[in-house]
């Protein structure tokens, strides 16, 4: 049973517009959430994270929103750029800072984002 789900396999947007990538989770013990970006033939790279004690975290063009009651998070990219075209993975862990999760992450299936010039 997939505990982290990204139900949209792909997303296509125009350069300069907003990209919204969604992620749902079922495990109520998850308390730390991350987004990773992956280019072809490369490993995933960390993008942004959010703790369950927050509902929003912003870093430049990237903002992650967390709705704990709905067990839903989203990544907003504004404005989108062609270089943002990649696979985006949502991930979650239990235990957070100082916890016992040992950094183990549960990943979603990924969403392929294509930003057209």
């Amino acid at each position, binding site marked *: 049973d*997939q505990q*982290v789900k*990204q139900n949209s*396999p792909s997303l296509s947007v125009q350069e300069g517009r907003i990209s919204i990538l969604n992620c749902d989770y079922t495990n109520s013990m998850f308390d*730390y959430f*991350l987004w990773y970006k992956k280019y072809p*033939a*490369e*490993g*995933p*790279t*960390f993008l942004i*994270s959010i*703790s369950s004690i927050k509902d929003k975290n912003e870093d430049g063009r990237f903002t992650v929103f967390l709705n704990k009651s709905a067990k839903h998070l989203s990544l907003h990219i504004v404005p989108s750029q062609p270089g943002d075209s990649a696979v985006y*993975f949502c*991930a979650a*862990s239990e*235990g*957070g*800072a*100082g*916890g*016992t*999760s*040992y*950094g*183990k*992450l*549960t*990943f*979603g*299936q*990924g969403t392929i984002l294509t930003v057209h010039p």
Partner: protein
Amino acid sequence: NAGVTQTPKFRVLKTGQSMTLLCAQDMNHEYMYWYRQDPGMGLRLIHYSVGEGTTAKGEVPDGYNVSRLKKQNFLLGLESAAPSQTSVYFCASSYSTGGVRTGELFFGEGSRLTVL
């Protein structure tokens, strides 16, 4: 600074053959992980290690063994490869949890394994 390095990058095996994937990190990280990525499945944790000489099972450990004899190296072994183990394997490392750095994994470039 190389970060996380995986060897080999590509390998083709026949069913029943054995092989070892090597992961090396130069960031002095305590924790190391092996994930596999399959289409439509995301990344799934195979085994992980919280320090030199320790290993633990992840979500999909069957058919794999690991060893962490040195802090900087984490080896993933397939004793008798099966077609179901055809996948892209990613090694990752991280600082121990606690403090500012939490949950951020640093990944290698991946190793594509095909079992015929």
